[in-house]
């Protein structure tokens, strides 16, 4: 229900993009070597920003009989470049004749209002201002909506201070709007820096947070809000950098979609990796909304420590972090239960997971093993399983709606697979996951009568040497990684059929297949390793076969095994996992804990570390500190 | 020995000035820069990068223009290497410059070569790189005898040792291994940073030598492979530029200087400090040919980000600034109970003028400038916007305090060493043990008690050609107007006028160092030939008074008593209503309380604050605050809750 305009805009931008070549998108993958020279890093960043601006600005021209055809994204880029200013004013006047409503309309409007402060005609500026009187803006019902809504309202109220309630759509004065907007934004920052993000590790929605924060950092006249914007950008991008491998986001996502969950690179997050770190190609159309980030990206300086998190990978690392679930209005004992994430990143592959359970009602992705591909475009470098949960009650937990229209409804609103038994997006209350380094055990205990009483395992078209071993393990190689997948119940294969877009009505084969296991008590074990660790694929298989392993599915699924890394693990559905005889106590997990990111629960303070470089973001004092240890 | 870059500076500046006159230099010849504060950080950064490009483009263009006789200098080579242009030409030129006959000695040769070596590390030919390396084997490098020399020397040796690690003593002119060189240079650099951040700079507020500190620090920040030294370089740059920004008014350095030249002491805008202000803040024109040595800063300047809080110190002046800071003198080898006695500086900056001073003592033996009142000129180029007085002191013994030299010959060599005015009676540069200065806001009282038999028993007062409406009033006050400032100068003894003569460098006999001729500038020197003497100077803004006459009446009405015997003393009420009493050799008294300089902090004022021994500077502008903490090597940016 929330994504319609996002996809519409992305489609529009993508279409526009087809007219003009996208240099970095069409080119070979970028060089992944670390740029040591700070001036060269900065120049490369600015060049990428200019690439986006020039591409989008040249993607449309004003027709004399249709000055409105530019659209706000192109206007924003032209304003940023100082080009075609008269056409920009004409376009703005035309666009403002028929304003939209809601945060996806508000922030582009604000972007043009600020970029055009010194460029647009008085008539065009007045046209923008008038829409903020006449058009009631919906605040939406999702966290990213509110961040966009309040950042936009805050900035417009700063731009037009001391104006009466009659001049604003909500009847509040500029000062009342400022006060409410600032209060929400600070509350959101407090919550995020104390107990984590609600929309954590999103493949696309990171833009809906980064863009408003950059707008604050660029345009707010309030020095405190400017600083908060900068600090939140560092916070978001530090985590993005840390959970990417060569620019591609890995592991669990609070929200993703049918495309990004398998073509991991094809996500707005990759656009941010490209523009910030230059270590992966940008997505088509620069990710749609990503263009708005570029219009003011020159106001952000990528901190060296964050750049190095993304690009300068030495040792393998484990990061254990907390986040929170989207707030639950009903059918839950907790408003925003915690999410416990584990990420294990190596040079050749990454393993990431949550502990399972119901996360986002529709678009969550609980765990995966992903491998590096030299060119990630078009590749499906991932392996995972899930219970294809499809439940109107789950959606009722998060939305104020009746259950019956929901399941069919969301399939028409950008989530086409939600009602499909072979879907590969979504979380389930009947899945529990345990990860130790590069071993994942996912257990399923699905009640009788549940829709789609089976689990789906995704096997990529890009796997090679797929072997169904008589031992029960399924072996394969993905990139420079060996993978072992152990289904705990009988299964069969079906072709993976793919919705090619949020609005696609039919599924098409794109390669790959689904392992379908139609058993209520079920489980998956996945073990990964680097090809460098074994003399041969056979040696890897021998090592896996030799691992001590016991499991049963009744009365509840249980696995007891020794991992490839020599850990004695025991995991029973509904119980705390046990590693080397010690039960994991998730309650003790910090907000961030690992070699690169560290933060205490409720601390409002993150320490970002790479080698001897350290940046501390302290929201208690609104201080950014850079130290060399 | 008094070390000087001698021929190197002469050649570099001479050549650059000469060719510069033939080659258009956009910002130098262009209209004045806007003094508007740039609020948008991206625009600020873009403007800074554009100024850097202007410098690099100009020098590259100069050296590349058809028929150009200009041979590539190390600076141009570095610029070309960083851009990956004319590499073969750079290789050839580098081989020429590294010919044993061409290789020079000392820090002014070392740092340009080291910059070129690092800029070319991936693009110079192996032969050219080897030739640089070889020069550091066979050519003994003089370390010099002045703080800035050591700074340039040790940073250069440090970075060369990092570039060529694990090499034996035989491969270095020092006879020490790369690791030994690294350890020594690092040790000294950290010691210098500790001293500077604990008790202040020795060469404080230098009009030119600021670049001899900024360039090596930027070299560290840019090229060091040690994150700690990189960070230290960044932090010292912030430290230096925060103070530079704070004591400039529209990009022109004000107040006392540890070291200054005969030209810069009157033409306040013609300094390396102004070049840096232009490059960093864009609020004043640059120098002809970008001032010579500072060009090397521009070769690496893209590696420095001007912090917003420092930019605003320089450009966003919403309130008067009062700053009381500490520094130290150059180290005394002899004839002193103290190694590096403290300097107590007072700076008062307003929109139309600035008043700055230290307490008066020998700071640098030759080139220091103790106090002045300077005013804002829309275009500072060619202007002499300053008023001050001094005792034109020269002394072989004072020179001996600082240099390992004999008294009789040392002063004579100064003309050839580039300090032509040192022994001249009408000189305007230098400090004296017989001058004591007191400042409260925009009132200065300078008292002189010159022992009989001292060279030049007189006081020189500088009166600019740019003053207007100069009136020698029967009250004894001399009134004048400079820019939008009213000035009142009260000589405490009789005086006469002589024309001001500036020094003009002329071609010298080879091997004889510098040579000069003198030209009148239109400014004048008030000469008061009395050993017991004094000057009172009061400034005010034109906007504060209904008319010039009203200002004069206000001054004449001020209660004032003074006497010169047995020692000069002044008791007066300042224009700001303070009751002050100053007696030569005694602590000044303000509103009944004697000043206790020993209580002064390292920095204390509107924008800069630091404790003695603290190794930590807090830079504040409005809600913006940057803390440079050398104890933890941390740079912290905070937005405070505001006032």
């Amino acid at each position, binding site marked *: *229900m*929330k*994504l*319609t*305009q*996002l996809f*519409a805009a992305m489609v529009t931008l993508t279409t526009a993009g087809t007219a003009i070549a996208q240099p970095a998108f069409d080119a070979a993958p970028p060089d992944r070597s670390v740029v040591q020279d700070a001036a060269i890093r900065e120049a490369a960043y600015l060049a990428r920003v200019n690439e986006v601006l020039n591409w989008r600005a040249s993607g449309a021209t004003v027709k004399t009989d249709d000055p409105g055809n530019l659209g706000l994204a192109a206007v924003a880029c032209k304003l940023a470049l100082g080009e075609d200013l008269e056409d920009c004013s004409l376009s703005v006047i035309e666009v403002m*004749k*028929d*304003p*939209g*409503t*809601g*945060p*996806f*309309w508000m922030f582009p409007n604000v972007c043009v209002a600020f970029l055009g402060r010194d460029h647009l005609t008085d008539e065009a500026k007045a046209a923008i201002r008038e829409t903020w009187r*006449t*058009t*009631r803006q*919906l*605040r*939406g*019902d999702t966290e990213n*909506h*509110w961040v966009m809504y*309040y950042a936009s309202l805050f900035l417009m109220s700063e731009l037009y201070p001391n104006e009466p*309630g*009659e001049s604003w759509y*909500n*009847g*509040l004065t500029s000062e009342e709007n400022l006060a*409410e907007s600032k*209060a*929400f934004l600070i*509350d959101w920052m407090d919550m995020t820096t104390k107990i984590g993000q609600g929309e954590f590790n999103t493949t696309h929605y990171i833009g809906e947070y980064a863009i408003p924060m950059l707008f604050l950092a660029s345009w707010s006249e309030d020095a405190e809000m400017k600083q908060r914007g900068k600090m939140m950008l560092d916070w978001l991008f530090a985590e993005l950098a840390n959970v990417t491998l060569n620019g591609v986001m890995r592991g669990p996502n609070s929200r993703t979609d049918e495309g990004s969950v398998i073509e991991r690179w094809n996500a707005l997050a990759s656009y941010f990796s490209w523009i910030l770190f230059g270590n992966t190609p940008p997505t088509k159309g620069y990710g749609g909304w990503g263009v708005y980030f570029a219009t003011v990206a020159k106001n952000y300086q990528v901190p060296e420590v964050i750049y190095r998190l993304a690009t300068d990978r030495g040792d393998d690392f484990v990061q254990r972090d907390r986040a929170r679930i989207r707030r639950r*209005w*009903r*059918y*839950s*004992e*907790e*408003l925003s239960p915690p999410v416990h994430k584990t990420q294990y990143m190596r040079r050749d592959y990454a393993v990431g997971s949550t502990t399972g359970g119901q996360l986002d009602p529709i678009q969550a992705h609980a765990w995966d093993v992903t491998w590096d591909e030299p060119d990630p475009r078009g590749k499906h470098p991932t392996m995972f399983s899930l219970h294809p949960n499809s439940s109107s009650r789950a959606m009722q937990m998060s939305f*104020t709606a*009746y*259950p*019956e*229209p929901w399941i069919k409804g969301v399939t028409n*609103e950008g989530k086409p697979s939600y009602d499909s038994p072979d879907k590969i997006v979504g979380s389930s209350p009947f899945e529990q996951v345990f990860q130790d380094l590069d071993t994942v055990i996912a257990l399923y205990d699905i009640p009788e009568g549940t829709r789609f009483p089976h689990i789906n395992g995704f096997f990529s078209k890009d796997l090679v040497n797929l072997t169904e071993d008589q031992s029960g393990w399924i072996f394969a190689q993905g990139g420079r990684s060996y993978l072992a997948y152990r289904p705990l119940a009988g299964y069969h294969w079906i072709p993976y059929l793919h919705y090619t877009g949020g609005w696609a009505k039919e599924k098409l084969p794109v390669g790959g297949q689904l392992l379908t296991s139609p058993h209520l008590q079920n489980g998956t074990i996945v073990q990964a390793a680097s090809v460098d660790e074994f003399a041969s694929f056979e040696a890897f298989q021998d090592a896996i076969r030799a691992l001590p392993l016991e499991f049963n599915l009744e009365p509840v699924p249980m696995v007891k095994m020794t991992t490839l890394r020599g850990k004695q693990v025991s995991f029973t559905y509904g119980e705390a996992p046990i590693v080397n005889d010690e039960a994991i106590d998730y309650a003790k997990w910090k907000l961030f804990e690992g070699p690169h990111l560290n933060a205490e629960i409720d601390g409002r303070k993150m320490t970002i570390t790479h080698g001897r470089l350290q940046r501390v973001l302290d929201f208690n004092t609104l201080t950014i500190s850079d130290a060399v240890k | 020995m008094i070390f000087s870059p001698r021929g190197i500076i002469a050649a570099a500046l001479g050549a650059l000035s000469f060719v510069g006159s033939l080659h258009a230099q956009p910002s130098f010849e262009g209209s004045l820069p806007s003094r508007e504060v740039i609020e948008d950080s991206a625009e600020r950064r873009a403007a800074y990068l554009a100024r850097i490009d202007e410098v690099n483009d100009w020098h590259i263009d100069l050296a590349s223009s058809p028929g150009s006789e200009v041979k590539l200098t190390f600076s141009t080579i570095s610029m070309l290497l960083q851009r990956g242009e004319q590499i073969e030409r750079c290789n050839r030129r580098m081989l020429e410059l590294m010919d044993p006959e061409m290789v020079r000695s000392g820090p002014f040769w070392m740092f340009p070569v080291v910059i070129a070596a690092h800029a070319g590390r991936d693009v110079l030919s192996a032969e050219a790189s080897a030739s640089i390396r070889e020069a550091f084997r066979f050519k003994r490098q003089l370390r010099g005898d002045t703080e800035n020399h050591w700074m340039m020397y040790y940073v250069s040796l440090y970075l060369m040792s990092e570039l060529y690690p694990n090499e034996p003593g035989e491969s270095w002119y020092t006879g020490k291994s790369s690791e030994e060189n690294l350890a020594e240079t690092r040790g000294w650099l950290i010691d210098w940073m500790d001293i500077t951040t604990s008790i202040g700079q020795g060469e404080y507020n230098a009009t030119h030598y600021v670049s001899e500190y900024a360039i090596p620090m930027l070299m560290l920040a840019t090229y060091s492979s040690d994150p700690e030294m990189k960070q230290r370089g960044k932090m010292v740059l912030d430290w230096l530029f925060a103070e530079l920004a704070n004591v400039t008014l529209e990009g022109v350095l004000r107040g006392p200087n540890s070291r200054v030249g005969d030209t810069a002491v009157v033409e306040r805008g013609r300094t390396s400090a102004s070049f840096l202000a232009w490059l960093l803040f864009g609020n004043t024109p640059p120098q002809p040919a970008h001032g010579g040595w500072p060009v090397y800063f521009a070769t690496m300047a893209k590696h420095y980000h001007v912090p917003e809080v420092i930019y605003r110190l320089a450009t966003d002046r919403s309130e008067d600034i009062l700053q009381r800071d500490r520094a130290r003198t150059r180290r005394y080898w002899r004839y002193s109970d103290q190694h590096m006695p403290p300097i107590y500086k007072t700076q008062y900056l307003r929109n139309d003028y600035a008043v700055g001073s230290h307490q008066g003592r020998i700071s640098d033996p030759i080139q220091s400038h103790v106090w002045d009142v300077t005013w804002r000129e829309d275009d500072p180029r060619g202007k002499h916007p300053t008023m001050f007085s001094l005792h034109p002191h020269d002394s072989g013994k004072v020179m001996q305090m600082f240099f390992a030299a004999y008294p009789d010959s040392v002063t004579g060599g100064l003309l050839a060493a580039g300090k032509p005015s040192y022994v001249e009676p009408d000189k305007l540069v230098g400090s004296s043990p017989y001058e004591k200065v007191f400042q409260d806001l925009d009132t200065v009282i300078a008292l002189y008690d010159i022992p009989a038999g001292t060279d030049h028993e007189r006081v020189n007062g500088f009166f600019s050609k740019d003053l207007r409406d100069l009136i020698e009033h029967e009250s004894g006050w001399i009134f004048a107007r400079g820019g939008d400032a009213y000035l009142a100068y009260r000589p405490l003894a009789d005086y006469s006028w002589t024309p001001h003569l500036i020094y003009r460098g002329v071609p010298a006999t080879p091997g004889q160092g510098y040579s000069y001729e003198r030209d009148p500038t239109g400014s004048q020197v008030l000469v008061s030939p009395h050993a017991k003497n004094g000057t009172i100077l009061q400034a005010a803004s034109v906007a504060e008074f209904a008319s010039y006459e009203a200002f004069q009446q206000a001054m004449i009405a001020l209660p004032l008593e003074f006497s010169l015997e047995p020692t000069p003393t002044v008791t007066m009420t300042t224009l700001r209503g303070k009751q002050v009493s100053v007696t030569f050799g005694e602590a000044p008294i303000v509103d009944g309380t004697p000043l206790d300089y020993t209580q002064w902090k390292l920095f204390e004022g509107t924008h800069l604050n630091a404790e003695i021994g603290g190794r930590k500077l807090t830079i504040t502008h409005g809600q913006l605050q940057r803390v440079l903490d050398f104890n933890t090597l941390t740079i912290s940016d905070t937005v405070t809750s505001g006032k």
Partner: protein
Amino acid sequence: MTPLKTFLTLITLMASTTFSTAAPEYDFYICAKVNRDYVIGSKVETVNGVFQRTDEGAWVHQGYNDTTLTAVAFDPRDRNVIYTSANNGLWRSLDGGKHWRICNDWDMTEARHVAVDPNAPDHVYLSLPDGIAVSTDRAQTLVRRENGLPERGKYTQLVTIDRTQAGRAFAGCEVGIYLTENGADSWRRVLETTDIVNDIQQSPHDPDHWLATTQSAGAWSSRDGGLTWSPIEGVPRAHSLYNVTFDMTNPDRLAIGSWGLGVLTSEDGGKTWQDRNTGLPEPQRVWRVGVDPSGRLYASVHTQTLFYSDDFGRTWQPDTLKGSLVNYFVTMPKSKQ
């Protein structure tokens, strides 16, 4: 058409049949989302929000074109004082819809329902997904009043006010029906349910007679002013019962709207119930039912349109507002203005 153009414009949507009864003594309003495919961020293509039916049977849009209105309420003393509950919270107009003010801040969202106490008209009750907020100054200020509601389980679909006693109201929550008799200073549960209470209505004929419907816990009735409740036999629990309504012209007539059951009616005061979906489109997905002051029964059918029946569901005719979802029917004494 832009919201500006629709601001207070009157869009006449003539009924397809002539109106059969004499001019009623009441005004009849609905809150409708006509823009069926509207999602947040997209353009508003049609007119949505509050519509008043004219004496001639036309639907006249009033106030703001908002796709998210869930309920409308008026100050009984002054029809120009209008309250609408919506996605952003509570919107209030003091001038008949010319100007609107959002009355809540970011602490309240996605309002489910708004009600004005007819015996204390300055008191406004806002139902929220995480509780209840009350204003005592015509929504100039709103404060949460949740004493007695559970920490979790206070999802509140609506608050229905007892017209006979100031400060007496029932809240339909996730885990039951809660009663306040002191203007929401405190609440107590009078009916525990296993699922969300979707609707609570007071009989226009007998103020002690109350009906309630739930998502999966059936329909309930009270004859003692809501102090005790008993399940209504004959109304299946298998499907969500979205709302219930009385017929102000006939005390025996009741109607329920349901997803899956469509329209159920009773003409014996709830003793027996009949399926009244003949003539309505399949499948039986009725969003709301309502009865106007003349006794005409309305049914808003999901993704279809508004239908009406002049024989209490035996036959149906399509009304206008094609594609609409009606969220709320409200009857008010006829405005004198």
